[in-house]
Every structure is written in structure tokens, then in C-alpha cells.
């Protein structure tokens, strides 16, 4: 990797043209991120100017009166992502640990392939599955026993109609498992064998070796993997939109409908009639973009510290 520029730094005219052209293509990426940020900001400016910081903390979303506050969707985005992480992290880390530490060799490739396949399912297919399979299943087999035992907590108040924070969180969880698992696997693979051997030689059991020697070594990368999954969950649109209920409300109950920023844009953008309505939705988009860019940047920095430079997570399938 380091010696390539030596070979390819050209002085020949053809070399200069070639390098210039490739640089132009490469410039497209930073240009893209700046352009996205720029146009979102410019288009969100009327809403930014009119509502100021109150946009973030007020709950009125009234296109008729032209008053917009995004607090419920910001809350819903964070809440559904949190639920998703609660479910997805144990699953994804288990997959990664299983694949790197416990699995027999012949089983590795098939299991990794199947989990990566989850990332290939289009989100609208997840949404369809959520509406017609997951929600009826939750209604019949999961919510009644949950309510019977934990019904007194604030998280399970109200009647379960189907579309809910719970359904959205579960769909999100399944969707982000392959991303977290793929990156976590790369991270664990980067842990030197000597770490495990040392722990085993000291008399640790296999699990103790994993817990005390492997996981701590890859901690930064594993946290990066989880944050990467969080980034996916925050911005995921269709799977959530189709099952979360799309209601502008802040509530702690998992059984009640909620709203996310991405869902609001998906539902309302093409129906927005006034300039201010569009602008408010653009501001929602701007918040979502800045949030996910920040989350992804943090995740990448953590992951790169462990598995340097590899495009981990983008190679599923």
C-alpha cells in the first residue's frame, strides 16, 4: 500500500492526465457531502429562521397553521433506534463471536453468508413482512404475555393496535444485525491469535478467553460496529415507516404508535403544499443528515483504529 505512489507518481503527460481524471472522480465524494449539506441548509433556511431552536423541542406539527416542531419525530427516531440496538446488539455480537471463536470451520461460510443475506433484503420487503407477519404475531403471542408480566411498567401502557414503537424497533433490529455483525466479525478477526492463546495457556476456559482477552482487545472496534448500526437505524426509512404508526406524539409506551424523522419525510414530502411545509421537512432532513454523518464519522474512526482502512460493513454479499 505504501509503495504504490512511488510507482505511480508520473511525470509523463499521459500519467498526468490519467491522474487528473481519477482525482476528479475522487473529488466527487467530498463535493457530494458538501453539496448535500449546502442544499439542505439553503432549503431549510426559511424554517430555520422562523422557528429557531424551538423546532427541536416543540411538538406542534400543524401544516394548516404553518407551525412546525419536530420533537416527537426526533424522540421517535432515538427511541426506535434504542429499542433496535437493545435487540440487535446481543444478536449481532453473538453472530460475530460464534463465527470467529466457536464455530466449526465448515459452518463459518454458510452462517456468515446467511446473516449477510439479511442486508440484501430491501427495506420495503421488511416493511411488508412487518405489516403482515410480525405485527399479527406480536399481537397474538408476544404482547399479551408481556403485558401480563410487565404491564405495570410505563413501557407497556395502552392498547396494542399493531403499528407501534415495538414493531418499528424489532424490524429495525433485524435490519441492522447484519451490519453490526459484519463489522464486529472483522474486528474480532483482527484480534491477534496470541491474545487467545495467552489466556488459554493461563488456564482460562474458552468463554473466559473471549471475555477477558478477545473482547477487551477489540472494544473500540466493537463499539464502532454498534455505533455504525445506530447510524443505520437512525436513517432507515421504509421498514420503519410501514410499521411504526406515524403519530406525532411523545410517549414511553412501546405499544403506542410513534413517528421518526425519516418516516415524516417519506410520508409528507410529496404532499407538502406550501413552501414553509417543504422547508420544515428539509430541516428535518438536515437534522437527520447531520446526525447520521456525525454518528457514522465516530463509528468509522473507532473501527479504523482496529481494522485499518478496510471497507468493513459495505461488503455484505
Amino acid at each position, binding site marked *: *500500500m505504501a509503495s*504504490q505512489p512511488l*510507482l*505511480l507518481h508520473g511525470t*509523463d503527460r*499521459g*500519467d498526468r*492526465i*490519467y*491522474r487528473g481524471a*481519477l*482525482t476528479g*472522480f*475522487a*473529488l*466527487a*465524494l*467530498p463535493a*457530494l457531502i458538501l*453539496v*448535500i449539506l449546502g*442544499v*439542505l441548509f439553503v432549503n431549510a433556511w426559511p424554517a430555520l429562521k422562523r422557528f429557531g431552536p424551538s423546532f427541536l423541542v416543540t411538538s406542534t406539527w400543524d401544516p394548516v397553521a404553518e407551525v412546525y416542531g419536530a420533537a416527537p419525530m426526533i424522540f421517535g427516531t432515538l427511541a426506535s433506534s434504542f429499542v433496535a440496538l437493545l435487540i440487535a446488539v*446481543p*444478536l449481532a455480537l*453473538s*453472530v460475530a463471536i*460464534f463465527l470467529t471463536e466457536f464455530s466449526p470451520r465448515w459452518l463459518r461460510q454458510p*452462517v456468515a453468508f446467511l446473516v449477510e443475506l*439479511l442486508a*440484501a433484503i*430491501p*427495506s*420495503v*420487503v421488511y*416493511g*411488508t*413482512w412487518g405489516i*403482515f*407477519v410480525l405485527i399479527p404475531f406480536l399481537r397474538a403471542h408476544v404482547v399479551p404475555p408481556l403485558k401480563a408480566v410487565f404491564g405495570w411498567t410505563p413501557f407497556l401502557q395502552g392498547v396494542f393496535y399493531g403499528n407501534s414503537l415495538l414493531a418499528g424497533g424489532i424490524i429495525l433490529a*433485524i435490519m441492522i*444485525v447484519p451490519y453490526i455483525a459484519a463489522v464486529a466479525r472483522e474486528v474480532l478477526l483482527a484480534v491477534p491469535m496470541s491474545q487467545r492463546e495467552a489466556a488459554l495457556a493461563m488456564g482460562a*476456559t474458552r*468463554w473466559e478467553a473471549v471475555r477477558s482477552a478477545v473482547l477487551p482487545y477489540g472494544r473500540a472496534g466493537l463499539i464502532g460496529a454498534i455505533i*455504525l448500526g445506530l447510524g443505520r437505524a*437512525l*436513517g*432507515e*426509512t421504509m421498514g420503519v415507516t410501514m410499521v411504526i404508526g406515524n403519530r406525532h406524539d411523545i410517549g414511553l409506551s412501546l405499544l403506542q404508535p410513534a413517528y421518526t424523522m*425519516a418516516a415524516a419525510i417519506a410520508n409528507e*414530502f410529496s404532499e407538502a403544499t406550501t413552501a414553509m411545509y417543504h422547508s420544515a*421537512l428539509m430541516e428535518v*432532513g438536515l437534522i437527520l*443528515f447531520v446526525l*447520521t454523518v456525525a454518528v457514522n464519522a465516530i463509528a*468509522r474512526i473507532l473501527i479504523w483504529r482496529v481494522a485499518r482502512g478496510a*471497507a468493513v*460493513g*459495505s461488503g455484505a*454479499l
Partner: protein
Amino acid sequence: MISRATRRHLASRLMTVLVVLLSFLAVLALILIFGNLLAKGASSIDWAFFTKSPVPAGQTGGGVANAIVGTAIVVGLSALIGVPIGVGAGMYLAEYGSGRFGYMVRFVADVLNGTPSIVIGIVGWIFIVKPSGHFSALAGSVALAILMIPMLARTTEEMVRLVPHSLREAALALGYPRWRTSLKIVARTALGGIVTGCLVGVARVAGETAPLLFTALGNLNFTVSVSQPMQTLSLQIYVYATGPFEEWHRLAWAAALVLMGLVLIISLIARWVTRQRYGSIR
């Protein structure tokens, strides 16, 4: 009394079982989704499903011919826009990307890879729909192309990096200029991998819905004009699955199965292309 050693071994066994169970749960989710797709979608798929356009709500029958053609056009056009830029950027990263700028580009690509696709839809709307005054397939293609570029840049880079150094050195030693070495030797050798990356990118965006909602918009009629609103399979599934009619739900499952099949077929071809050259990617 259980001895300390037994307890520790028991704990180890227990955690192993837990890890295996949870891993199985993740795989189970996949099996369930695929099983439901087949069970609920396969029975509705027949020749008419592929050859007819949708019928008005309330009537039975009709197909998704317009959506299949629409998907091909929107995705094909997005590949035309996205592939040259994405692959070019990837070649840059592999050939010249070890400096600061390369590092920054790589970082931006990774960050963009995690950007919500719905936001990219807004960008397509701002640049194409707003100035032209109407929704269009082209706007959808531009949005999908933007999604594709960072993905392709990173996979291309990875594939080109797999080319053995000795090949490059041999070409240079024979007096080949560097740009020709890069194009004729390095890129040619990595071609299988690059094509794979492109196919995976295409498969990814083919399943996208969010960036098309207010760009390509959807269209109940058959059209091939990219300046018009156009239907895609993903948009069709969204409308059918969230609609009120039983008949629509049936069609949603069938269309979902077709879309899933399409994505899988492209992905499998992608794997097959690489297998020819390198064996498995990872």
C-alpha cells in the same frame, strides 16, 4: 458443593450455548422472511403478473409489468451515471489514495455509505424535480446514483488492491507508462472484482424505495419516458402493502418475492463473476 473449576467450565458451556442460540435466532429471522415470501408470494405469480400493468383498485388481476420495466430503466440509468464516477474514485483510492486526500476521500465515502437514503431523495428532488416542475424517473436515477457512488468507490478500491504488485512491476519494467499499466494491467486484472462491486451496488439500489418516493414517484401506467413519473417494484410494493385491499396485499407479496428474487439473482451473478478469478471475495 460444586468446585470452582466445574463452575467456570459450566459458565463457559452456558455462554457458548447462549451465543449459538442467539446466532441461530438471527439466521432464523432470515429463514422466516424468505419462507413467508415464498409461501405468500409464489402462488400469485403467473405469466400475467409479469406481462400486465395494474388494474384499477377493486378489480382483481393485473400485474407489475410497468414496475419491472420501470425498475430496469431507473436502476439502469442510475448505473450509467454512478458507475463511472464510483469506479473512477475507487481507482484513485487504490492507485493514489495513500496520502491525506485519499484518506479523506475514503473517510467521506464510508460516512456517505451510511447516509439515510431518504435524504438523498430530497437532494434528487431539489436538483431535478423542483427546477423541472414535475416528478421524473431521471430524478430517481440521480438519487440512486448518488447512493451508488460511495459504495462502488470502496468496493472498487478493495478489488484493485487485490491485484498482485508483481504484475504492476513487470509492466513498468517493460517500459509501459504508468497510466497504461493502471488501465491495461491493473484494472484489467481486477475487472471481475470491479464488475462484482458494480453488480452488488446495482442490487442494493434496485431495492431502494425511500429515495424514489418523491422523485420517480410511481405511475400506474406503462411508460418508458425518463422525464415522466415512473413505477418501480419497490414503490409498487409500498403502495400495495399499505393499501386497504386484500387483492393489493396479495400482489404486494408477489411483487416483494419478485424484487427479492431480482436482488438475489444480481447478487449471485456478482459472486459468480468474482469466483472465476479470485475464488471467494473474503
